[in-house]
Structure formats: structure tokens, C-alpha cells
């Protein structure tokens, strides 16, 4: 119970901080916007519509880079002193769960905005929108839980920003493959049965990653 309250406070703090210094939030939104626009411009040069597999792959690559950039700042921004302060106040599990929760919501927001913009300029070939959105939500949870611990690890090292990418990308490829597969099914409007096993694997993967983060963060925290 105590844990849930601590998570609540920490998430509230994160949102309040985000709202007060709107520069980072608007920076991320602009990042999504300009990436989508760059993609649009580079494909519009060729003329004609983007084929569905390319649309799909491009969308997920945009989301991947957005996620890495958005989550990276989670731990990199926190100063050492502030970390010590949390250390005195709350338990480590609350810190990691709150960060994951906050990042999930952040990525959901960014993904939603990205999808809207993307569909606006590049057309929306998705035939099964609910499945696509469900898949995106699972993707947001997966990206957030993987990248949050990775950003915690990277923040301890000297060359954090490079490390963030090289530590995170290989871990996310399996997840990304599943996500791209399900989202292709949603694009083609296949029945739900076709994506069930992949979706279940995604859920299981998210749970594994979340559980391992929960178990390992206290050790990371100690340093």
C-alpha cells in the first residue's frame, strides 16, 4: 500500500516537473512532428503513395527513436543530489515503477500524436484501428519498461547517450519484430486470431522485462 502511494507521489512529481518546464515536452512533440515531416518530404519527392510495409516500418522506426529520446532523459536529467534525496525518502521499487509508469504514459501520448500526424500527411492505410492502437499501447509499455532500466544503467556511465542506443536497440529488436508483425496484420485488416499469439508473446515479454527491472533496480540504485 505504501509502495502504491510512493509511486503515486513520484509520478505526480514527474508530471508536475514536465508541466512546469514545458520546453522538454514541446521539444519531444516537435521531434516527433519534424521526423514525420522529414519522412513525408523524402517520400513525397518520389510521388505516389507509400506501400503498406514501408509505411509500417517507417512508423515504428519513428516511434523507436522517439522512445529512445524521450525515455533517455528520465534518469539522465536527474541530478545526483536529487537521487540521494529520493533514496532517503522512498524505496527503490517505487522509483523504477513510477518512472516506468510515467514513461508509458509519455510514450502513449507521443505515439498518439505521432500516429495522428503520420496518418495526416502520409495517409492512413490501417484497416483495423482498435488492434493497431492496442498494439501501440503494448509497444509503449514494452519500450518504456525496457528503456527505463537501460537509461538508469546508461546514466551511471560516462558516455551515456551512445550507451543508451547500443544497450537499448538490440534488446528492443525482438519486441520490435513482434510489434511490426501485429501492426502489419492490423494494416491488412486480418482477423484477431492471426495476431493473438504475437500479442500474448508481447504481453509476456512486457511482464518479464517489468519484473526483471523491478528486481534489478535496487542494485543499480545503491551506487
Amino acid at each position, binding site marked *: 500500500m505504501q509502495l502504491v502511494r510512493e509511486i503515486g507521489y513520484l509520478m505526480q512529481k514527474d508530471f508536475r516537473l514536465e508541466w512546469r518546464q514545458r520546453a522538454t515536452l514541446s521539444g519531444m512533440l516537435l521531434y516527433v512532428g519534424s521526423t514525420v515531416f522529414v519522412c513525408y518530404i523524402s517520400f513525397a519527392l518520389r510521388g505516389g503513395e507509400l506501400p503498406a510495409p514501408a509505411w509500417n516500418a517507417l512508423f515504428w522506426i519513428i516511434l523507436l527513436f522517439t522512445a529512445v529520446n524521450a525515455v533517455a532523459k528520465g534518469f539522465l536529467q536527474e541530478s545526483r543530489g536529487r537521487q540521494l534525496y529520493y533514496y532517503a525518502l522512498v524505496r527503490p521499487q517505487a522509483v523504477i515503477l513510477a518512472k516506468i509508469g510515467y514513461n508509458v504514459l509519455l510514450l502513449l501520448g507521443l505515439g498518439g500524436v505521432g500516429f495522428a500526424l503520420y496518418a495526416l500527411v502520409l495517409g492512413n492505410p490501417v484497416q483495423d484501428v482498435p488492434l493497431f492502437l492496442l498494439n501501440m499501447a503494448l509497444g509503449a509499455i514494452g519500450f518504456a519498461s525496457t528503456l527505463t*532500466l537501460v537509461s538508469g544503467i546508461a546514466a551511471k556511465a560516462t558516455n551515456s547517450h551512445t550507451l543508451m542506443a*547500443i544497450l537499448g536497440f538490440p534488446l528492443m529488436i525482438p519486441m520490435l519484430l513482434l510489434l511490426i508483425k501485429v501492426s502489419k496484420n492490423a494494416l491488412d485488416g486480418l482477423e484477431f486470431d492471426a495476431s493473438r499469439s504475437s500479442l500474448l*508473446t508481447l504481453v509476456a515479454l512486457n511482464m*518479464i522485462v517489468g519484473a526483471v527491472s523491478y528486481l534489478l533496480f535496487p542494485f543499480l540504485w545503491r551506487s
Partner: protein
Amino acid sequence: MKNNWWKGLAVVLLLYVAVAGLLMPVPRLAILNESIRNLYFHVPMWFGMTAVLTASVYYSVRYLRTPTPQLDILSHEAAKTGIYMGFVGLATGSIWAKYTWGAWWTNDPKLNGAAIAMLIYGAYLVLRSSFQDEQQRARISAIYNIFAFAAAMPLFFILPRLTASLHPGAGGNPAFAKYDLDSNMRLVFYPAVIGWTLLGFWLAQLASRVAFLKQKVYDKQLA
């Protein structure tokens, strides 16, 4: 000698595998032909790699419970041995693919899984090298080791089974299955798996001993 019997076993088994693997009769299968003998060398590499990397994770877990430099060295050297075995596995697979499929590399889930595993452990090595402080390096790389193993390893066993694959053993392609791995091949294949796995552990042990000695020399110089 009492504690080293397994090294003798490894030598005997691998000598047997080298001789019997190249000389014993194998079933005549279309496309595969004599290249089926790669089963004795390529496949055990992955078994060995998985076993050695599991040992590495085991030492990482133990390190987090009781931090000693020895456990860190053991985990690091086991991971390095796993990487070597992975590279040998990739090389034997690649040469085999050139002669059976006609290409060094194809876009196949199993191959991609192997490549991702190598990327993850490459990232592990980079992470290790980006810390100055030894204790911090040991703890944080142990955390990443466990996290990467838990997040990615299960998928290498699940993902290829979810997607169609050209690789032997999947999608009805002839390979390691009950109808074509005949009893003659089993006679060599199982010893090969045990032999290469033992060799992997032996290599890791030797490397760890060298590292222990280096540490000792270093400590003496400091004293």
C-alpha cells in the same frame, strides 16, 4: 585429477566427434548432402554458447548477492567465451549457408536472433569499458547481463518458432527432427553437444584463471 575428469572427457569426446563426425555414414538428403555434418560443429556451438552465457548470468546474480571481484571476473570471462562461441557458430553457419543456400547471410529469424545476441553482448563489453570505477563497473555490467539475458534470450527460442524460416529444423526443412536425425547421427551429435559445451566451460575457466593472476600481479604492484 579428481576435479579435472571433465576436461579429459571433453578431449576424448571432441576427438571422437572430429573423427566420427567426418567419417561416419550420414543420411543422404537432398540439398544438404554431406554438409549435414555441420550439425556436429555448428549446432553444438549454440548449445555451448547458451550454457556458458547462463553460467555468466549465474555468476552475475551471485555477484549482486555477495560482491567479490572473483565473481565479476568469472561472469565477464564466461560472457566473453560465450561471445567467441557465438562467433564460431555464426562463421560455421555462414560457410554452410554459402554452399547450401548460395549466400553468406539471409534474412532469417534464426540468423537475426543470433546477430542480435552478438549485438547485446557487444554492448555488454562496451558498457564494461565505459566505467573507471571497478566496483561500479562490476555491479552495473552484472545488472545489464541479467537484464539482457532475461529480456532477449527467451525470445531466441520463441521467435523463430513463430515465424516461417528457411533454417533447417523449421518450416519442414530437413534437419534436427525425429525423422531425419537417424540413430547414427545421434551417436555423434549428443557427444558433440556435451564435448563442445565442456570445452566452452574449460575455456572460460582458463580465461578466468589468467584474469585472477593478472589481478594478483596488479594488487602486488599496488602494495
